[in-house]
């Protein structure tokens, strides 16, 4: 294997790219959380924390995942005009994990490379949201289909 274990596998789906591939493992639990009002940001964090606990992530990993969720959900709220968070608990040979999918119907991200660069931000925040979430998770995909909207999907696995 040439890939480093902590290096996130990034597939930056362009506007022409095919949709996401199938799930990497069986989903043992799935929940949906609307991101419509500011209070939903905190609710989303709590739900992610509970799911991270449920798949036996350690304290540092819980903190990573909740922080990444906070960034992605805030992006959907501020840039996407609201959206939805899907939390999935995963189980595969070698360990359990948590996958977060945050979608919004906003204008999309015009320049993904720039958005992933530290310091880039078109709204509130320091511009560390997307790039930061990518570094905190094992797998990271972002998709901006031609019709608009943004879907970010991130996964973190518990150490096997």
């Amino acid at each position, binding site marked *: 294997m040439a890939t480093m274990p902590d290096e996130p596998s990034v597939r930056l789906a362009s506007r022409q790219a095919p949709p996401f591939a199938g799930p990497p493992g069986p989903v043992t639990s799935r929940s949906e959380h609307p991101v419509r009002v*500011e*209070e939903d*940001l*905190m609710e989303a*964090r709590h739900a992610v924390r509970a799911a991270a606990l449920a798949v036996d992530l350690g*304290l*540092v990993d*819980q*903190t*990573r995942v*909740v*922080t990444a969720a*906070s*960034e992605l959900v*805030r992006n959907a709220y501020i840039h996407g005009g609201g959206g939805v968070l899907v939390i999935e608990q995963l189980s595969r040979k070698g360990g359990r994990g948590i996958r977060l999918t945050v979608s919004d119907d906003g204008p999309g991200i015009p320049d993904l490379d720039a958005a992933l660069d*530290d310091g880039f931000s078109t709204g*509130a*925040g*320091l*511009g*560390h*949201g997307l*790039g*930061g979430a990518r*570094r*905190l998770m094992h797998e990271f995909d972002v998709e901006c289909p031609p019709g608009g909207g943004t879907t970010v999907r991130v996964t973190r696995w518990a150490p096997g």
Partner: protein
Amino acid sequence: MTGVRRATGVPILRLGDVLVTGLLEELDDRSATAFLDELTERITAEGAKGVLIDISRLTIIDSFVARTLSELTTTARLLGTRVIVAGMRPPVAITLVELGLRLDGVETALTAERGMAALGWFRTASSQEVGHGDHAG
């Protein structure tokens, strides 16, 4: 004088020329902004020379909270006040580094006690553990 206002639900205490406050487990964006405003107001109202913010209960710091702490520190410095952020949990510190946030310019301390010492507050001589070593005092 405004007294102890609790717009954010967080008390801000004055000990001499130092303001002492702390953040709870979580901070939403609105509370973070309100906290910044309230603390800045109190710094000028009380003529505080130093501010200690205990964050030992804070379980996550995302980019918004990090920015708020940076802005608060910068604002306070422009007012001539020194801010020390104390007691960051190790998982929070690890996550901040990976997030790419170094909280540049924000002075930190391992514990609130050390932060207070840096601001000129020391334990009284009657304390059993006065000094830096086990055999002091």
